[in-house]
């Protein structure tokens, strides 16, 4: 079994920043299959489509899912109660490729930060750079502190951490790391890819509107260059993690 859909029990639902919710859900069978950088597809009562959410962390029996309320579906999710059963299709997609003996830098922006936690935990001495619009949206700093001292915070308005972008921090530390894993909005990913180009390898995790979540319906397309061939690939199945040089960021 690679993935399946099962009822998970919601055992924690906490608002950790304005409009950002921190779930822990329990299902032994599927939780143990999760790899870093993968995602799940959550059935929301009354909605036709499931909601794809990245895996923030995974335990033996549990998944931690941190999501932002963006519309009606995530609003319904935010109001679900501890003890509720949630139908979840998991785990999905190809996550970050982590190799031994390399020093990784994890770069995240906004709601792209959560999947980096589980990923950073798979590495030794990671560097972590997170960026947010302002101090009210900063999340997961305590979790990151537990796994590394090399933790950097930037905000667009300077209300917490460094006043600036994650790429400003990344540029200063590029010679201390071997590879970058990034997740966040497209302009940030493009900027991170530009900084890394020709210097260090970079993996980026993308977001796209999805249907089935397993690669059958072909709606979550991303224009990519694989080898010398330009093609549409499915973010849910081929991704969500791509080599930063494979992705066309403007289209």
């Amino acid at each position: 079994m690679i993935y399946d859909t099962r009822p998970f029990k919601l055992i924690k639902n906490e608002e950790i920043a304005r409009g950002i919710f921190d779930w822990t859900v329990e299902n032994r069978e599927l939780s143990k299959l999760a790899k870093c950088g993968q995602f799940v597809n959550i059935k929301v009562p009354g909605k036709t489509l499931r909601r794809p959410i990245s895996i923030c962390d995974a335990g033996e029996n549990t998944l931690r899912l941190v999501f932002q309320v963006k519309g009606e579906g995530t609003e319904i999710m935010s109001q679900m109660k501890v003890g509720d059963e949630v139908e979840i299709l998991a785990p999905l997609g190809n996550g970050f490729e982590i190799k031994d003996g390399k020093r990784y830098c994890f770069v995240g922006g906004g709601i792209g930060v959560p999947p980096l936690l589980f990923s950073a935990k798979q590495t030794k001495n990671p560097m972590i750079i997170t960026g947010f619009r302002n101090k009210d949206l900063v999340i997961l700093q305590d979790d990151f502190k537990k796994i590394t001292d090399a933790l950097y915070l930037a905000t667009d308005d300077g209300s917490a951490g460094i006043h600036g972008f994650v790429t400003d921090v990344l540029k200063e530390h590029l010679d201390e790391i071997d590879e970058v894993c990034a997740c966040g909005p497209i302009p940030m990913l493009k900027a991170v890819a530009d900084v890394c180009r020709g210097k260090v390898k970079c993996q980026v995790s993308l977001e796209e509107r999805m249907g089935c979540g397993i690669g059958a319906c072909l709606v979550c397309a991303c224009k990519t260059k694989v080898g010398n061939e330009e093609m549409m690939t499915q973010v849910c199945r081929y991704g969500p993690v791509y080599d930063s040089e494979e992705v066309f960021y403007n289209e």
Partner: protein
Amino acid sequence: MSNLKVNLCGVELNSPLIAASGTFGFGREFAEFYPLSNLGGVSCKGITLEERSGNLPPRIAETEGGILNAVGLQNPGIDHFIKYDLDWLKAQNTVVIANIAGNTVEDYCAMAEKLSETSVDFIELNISCPNVKSGGVQFGTSCESVGNITSEVRKHCKKPLMVKLSPNVTDIAEIAKSAEFNGADVISMINTITGMRIDINSKRPIIRNNTGGLSGPAVFPVAVRMVWQVYNAVKIPIVGMGGISKWQDAVEMLMAGATALQIGTVLFNDPYAPLKINYNLKNYMEEKNISSISELTGSVIPW
């Protein structure tokens, strides 16, 4: 013992439920959940003569009780399908329906000819895709063009020919009659209804193609009405689809006149929906003392 088996043009289906084209790829991803023999068949992702990369994203938007999609026929091309996907799918012990789309009548004929030499069970003529610039729905919206493409493809097609109709027409019964008269063996209906959604903040259509095809529970009553109209106009069997998401919908669509069914959008919500519908259909049949599901076809008693 109640029996879900259906005979469609001499081909036996394990169940009236067929996975609808475009929602199921070539079956591999869903085979991870359950054996595809639980389905009556798989209508494959629409294939074209040459590989197509499809539209730019976003290709999907949610609507009240449904979705809009505009994938734009992304597919690896017919030769790739025959070489790499068909044998695998055929080995899953389910009926294989090849859904074909083209820019020209000649494209359709060339594909029908190639597929006639393979193990596919049906060829489904997709003349109703609303999401490509040329081809697709342009062949499906007048009696003349439907008649013409059906009769031309018929000359090259040695398989049972299923013609998939667009609901974006004035009189679907007349279109169905034209398909029947020109050699269609089965009508499948309905394809998606053209729709649009706009992001009120950016003023941009949510779908990059601006418009897309509406599917899901929202279109179900339209599909039932059209299947009923066509059932009263033609003698060939109908594969009914459009928003079927629970067993009651399946019964309703059969009563409207369908011999078999296709389900699609519900699979995104619940990939196990076909198994649940099969199970509940059997219970319903036992309760109502129905020995063959075909007894339901066209059993509506109109006022």
